[in-house]
């Protein structure tokens, strides 16, 4: 009886591990979509009101990106706490933290870091075109990650169950 219980526990643990890994990928896709949406909202705010970036971030935070774990919320907190640090530095700091937390693909991180280097230093048209390019690149990355996710989701889950069964067989 105990052996059966132990075997079930091992299989359940391996399955949970597989599901967690799949969930992480899903979270990464969600984070990428959130970043794309943040870029789109920043571009919209600049296009419509020509407000400076700290004000844009503050307004977006109030309007819709107020969840504590969202990118805009983290950026807003950093802007609020900064002693007039350059916006590019705050952006870099926030992207690195967010990327670590959400396990973003390295391409996404470097894309956003390079976007941040010029943010706020260009004229209106260049800012908007760079933000649009950023959105387009993120969209490509999201498509790619979603395709990989679709391909590997079932396989990861099945492999984790098989791994559990294999460990049980080895232990028996």
């Amino acid at each position, binding site marked *: 009886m105990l052996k059966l219980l132990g075997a079930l526990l091992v299989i359940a643990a391996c399955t949970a591990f597989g599901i967690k890994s799949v969930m992480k990928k899903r979270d990464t896709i969600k984070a990428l979509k959130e970043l794309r949406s943040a870029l789109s909202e920043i571009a919209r705010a600049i296009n419509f009101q*020509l407000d400076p970036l700290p004000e844009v971030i503050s307004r977006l935070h109030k309007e819709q990106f107020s969840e504590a774990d969202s990118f805009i919320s983290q950026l807003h907190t950093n802007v609020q706490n900064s002693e007039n640090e350059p*916006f590019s530095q705050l952006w870099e700091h926030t992207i690195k933290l967010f990327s670590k937390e959400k396990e973003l693909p390295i391409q996404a991180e470097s894309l956003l870091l390079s976007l941040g280097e010029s943010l706020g230093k260009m004229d209106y048209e260049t800012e908007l075109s760079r933000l649009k390019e950023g959105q387009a690149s993120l969209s490509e990355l999201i498509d790619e990650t979603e395709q990989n996710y679709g391909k590997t989701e079932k396989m990861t889950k099945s492999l984790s169950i098989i791994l559990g069964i294999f460990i049980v067989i080895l232990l028996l």
Partner: protein
Amino acid sequence: MDNTKDMILRQLSDTYRRLLSSVPFQGLEEIRFRIERPVTLYYHDRTVYLSDCGITLYPHSAKFIGKSELEDVSSCLLNHSVYAYLNEIKDGFATIRGGHRVGLAGKCIIKNGQITGMTAISGINLRIAREYPGCAKALADRLKTQNGVKNTLLISPPQCGKTTYLRDLARIFSHTYKITIVDERSEIAGTYEGVPQFDIGPQTDVLDRFPKSSGMLLALRSLSPQILLTDELGDEKDAEAIRKLCGAGCRIIASMHGDSLSELRRTKKELLSFFDVAVCMGRQNGIPSVISIESLR
């Protein structure tokens, strides 16, 4: 003045926030940053230099500002968002939070014969806006008539208090009249995120950053002001807008750069014809004040 000092320091880069924190702001009118030269502080009665331990009278012991530091200062003052100030930069200056004016010197960018911006910033002139509630009280009393207020033009060279007087006149008259300020440079009301940073009175509307001529006409159509105030009149479009305002019975108080009334009589004859009085301003013992009030009728 402490509020002014705090507000300005908050908008500066870390180095200059630290250095200027020990500097007295009472009477300070301008802070000049010139590349590879000493940072200069212009008080109403003296000129001194910024040093690592406060202020100094000697340029050789002053703090010299380098290129990257100057870039940091300009980026901080422009809120790290050049695109938001580009329209103003084209004219050589931008207005920051608190209504303070940032004048820029640098290399001009020209596209299709038009100035589109400025690059290689080599100098910054931070002009400190100040509020002296009550400074225009005596003038306000002289501008009142039985039917309202005289159409008034304040004339002076730069830095003689035109904007400060306009702001105070708005505050005083807004206890009695509906006022609209067309604040093309955000200097009169110092509006930030829609909230005026200066006391402009209870019945005052602000058209912030509107081009003067279109702002004046818009005010007439939508805000029905009894008195309209605006700063630094100049071109023919302004004269045309004022003609329409006068025709609609709205009173106008405005300012204009000029050395003397006689000079303006030659160069801006049409514009002067809309006003009842010209208030010539200047500096007496270093303090901006009214020099003379002359009838134009």
